[in-house]
C-alpha cells in the first residue's frame, strides 16, 4: 500500500484555529487602540486621525479626576508590589531553602490562598472584616487588600528562580565563615535578582489591574484608575475612555515585556 507519508504532528484546521485565537485575543485591543486616535465626538463614526482625546485625558474637564485616580493606582501598585515581593522572597527562602519544617504545608496553602479564593469572595470577606473591626475604608484598606493578593503572584517567579539556583554557592560562602545572614544577603539575593524583579513587576501589574476587590474596599471618595474608568463606562463609553485604556494597555504591555526579558536574561546568565 503506497500511501503518502502523513505528518503525525500536523492536523488540518489547527493552524486556522490558532490564527483565530490570536485574532480574538488582539482584535478588541487593536480596535480600541485605533479608535483612541479618532477625531470625532461620536465613538462610532470615524472622523480622521487626531490626538484630541489624549489631550482631553490630560487637560480636559475630567483630567483632575483621572490624574488623582492614576496617582492612587500607581502609588498603591508600587507600595503593594514592594511589600508583597519582600514578603514573598522571605517566604520562598523558607519554603525552598529551609528543609522540612513544621507548618510548611500550611504555609504553602496560605501563600496560595489569595489565588484559590474567588476574587469576589475575597472582596466580600475583606469588606466584612474591615467593617467589623470598625476600620474606615479608604486608601489604607485598598493597600492592605492589594498586598494580600499580590503575594502569590510575586511568589511564583521568585520560588521558581530559587529552585533553579543550586545552593552550593551559599554552602561555599558558609564554608568560608560567612554567617547565614551574609550568605543570604551577599550570595542568594544577588543571584535571585532577576526572579525578584520578575515577581515585583507581576505584582505591580496585578495591583494595577484589580477592580473587584478595590471596588469593595475603597469606600466613598477615593478612586483608583480601574474604578474611575468603570464609573465612567457605566454612563456609556466615551472617546476619552479609549485613550485612557490605550495608555493603560501600553503600560501593561511594557511591564510584561520587561518582566519577560528580565526572566530570559536570568535564564541565560545561569
Amino acid at each position, binding site marked *: 500500500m503506497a500511501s503518502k507519508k502523513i505528518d503525525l504532528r500536523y492536523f488540518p484546521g489547527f493552524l486556522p484555529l490558532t490564527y483565530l485565537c490570536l485574532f480574538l485575543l488582539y482584535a478588541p485591543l487593536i480596535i480600541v487602540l485605533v479608535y483612541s486616535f479618532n477625531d470625532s465626538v461620536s465613538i462610532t463614526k470615524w472622523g480622521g486621525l487626531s490626538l484630541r482625546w489624549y489631550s482631553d485625558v490630560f487637560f480636559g474637564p475630567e483630567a483632575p479626576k483621572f490624574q488623582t485616580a492614576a496617582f492612587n493606582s500607581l502609588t498603591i501598585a508600587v507600595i503593594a508590589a514592594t511589600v508583597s515581593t519582600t514578603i514573598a522572597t522571605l517566604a520562598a527562602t523558607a519554603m525552598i531553602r529551609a528543609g522540612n519544617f513544621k507548618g510548611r504545608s500550611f504555609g504553602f496553602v496560605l501563600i496560595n490562598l489569595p489565588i484559590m479564593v474567588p476574587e469576589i469572595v475575597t472582596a466580600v470577606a475583606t469588606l*466584612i472584616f474591615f467593617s467589623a473591626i470598625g476600620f474606615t475604608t479608604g486608601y489604607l484598606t485598598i493597600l492592605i487588600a492589594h498586598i494580600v493578593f499580590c503575594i502569590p503572584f510575586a511568589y511564583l517567579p521568585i520560588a521558581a528562580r530559587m529552585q533553579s539556583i543550586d545552593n552550593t554557592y551559599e554552602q561555599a560562602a558558609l564554608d568560608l565563615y560567612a554567617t547565614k545572614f551574609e550568605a543570604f544577603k551577599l550570595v542568594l539575593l544577588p543571584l535571585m535578582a532577576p526572579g525578584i524583579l520578575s515577581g515585583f513587576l507581576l505584582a505591580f501589574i496585578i495591583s494595577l489591574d484589580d477592580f473587584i476587590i478595590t471596588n469593595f474596599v475603597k469606600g466613598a471618595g477615593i478612586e483608583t484608575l480601574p474604578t474611575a474608568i468603570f464609573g465612567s463606562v457605566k454612563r456609556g463609553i466615551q472617546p476619552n475612555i479609549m485613550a485612557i*485604556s490605550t495608555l493603560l494597555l501600553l503600560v501593561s504591555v511594557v511591564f510584561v515585556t520587561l518582566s519577560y526579558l528580565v526572566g530570559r536574561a536570568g535564564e541565560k546568565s545561569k
Partner: protein
Amino acid sequence: MAGAITNNSKSNSGIYAGSAHVLMLPSWLIIGFFLLIPVLLMLVYSFLTKEFRGGVIWEFSLDAYDQFFFYRGLFGDEPPVFEWTYVGIFWRSIWQAGAATIFCLIIGFPTAWFIAMRRGANKSVWLFLITIPYWVNLLIRTISMKFLIRDNGPLNEWLLWMGAINEPIHMINTNFAVQLGLFYSYLPFMVLPIYASVERYNFALSEAAADLYASHWETLRLIILPAVKPGIIAGCILVFVPSLGAFLAPDLLGGAKTFMIGSLIEEQFKGNAGNWPFGAAASMILLSMVLAMLTYYARQQSKEVS
C-alpha cells in the same frame, strides 16, 4: 493560578532551617489576618441577622440560607416553597462558565498543540503572544469587547460593509456576549496547561498507532487526547473557576437576563439590595463549590504523580 495547586518543591537542604518560622512569619500574619480570618468572619456573618441598608445584627439566624432556597411569602409567614430565583442564578452561572470553558477548549487546544510543535525560540515567542493580553487590565479588555460587539460597533459595521449581513447582529446583553467576554478573559489559562501536557507527549505513541493502521483522527482521539488529559482538565478548571464568580463580563456585556453569581453578591454590598448575611451566604456557597473543585483537581494531580 497555574502551578499554584501542586506543591512539588523538593527542598534538598535546609540552610536556613533555623529561621524558617521567622521567614514565614510576615506571610502568615498578613494573609492569615487579612484573608483567612476575614473568610471565617464571612462564614459567621452568613449566620447573622440582616440590618436594613447594610451591616448585620449579632443574632444567630438561618435566614440567609433559607432565603436562598425557599420563598415564604411576602411577610415570611407562609409555608416554604422552593425558590428558583437564586438557585437559578447559580445554575445560569455554571452554564455560562461551562459554555465559556468549552469555547476556550475548542480554540485553546489547537493553539496549544500548534505552539508545542514550534521549534526552539519560536515557542517562547508564541507563548508570550498568547499571554500578553492576559496581563492587560481585565476591565479594559472587557470594555474593548463591549465596544467591538455593540450594535453599531466596528464588528457589525465591518460585516455590513462586507455584505455578510444586512442588518446589525444584536450581540450585546445576550448570553453569547457574556460567554464571549468570559472566553476572552481566561483563554490563556486554557492554552498554557494544555501546552505543558503536549510538550511532554511522546510521539513514539503516535507512530506506533499509525503503524497499527490507526487513522490520523483516531490517533488524536484514542492516543493523544487521553495522554494530554491532565492538561485539558487543568485548563478547564482554570477557566471555569474564575468564570463562575466573574463580575465584569456579566455586568458590562450582559443585561438583566444574564445576571450571574458575581453580580448577585455585588448587589448585596454595593447595590440596593443591602443584605449582608445573604451576600455572605452566597459567597460561602460559591467558595465551597470552588474549593470542592480545586480539592478534586489536587487529588487527581497527586494520583497522576504516584
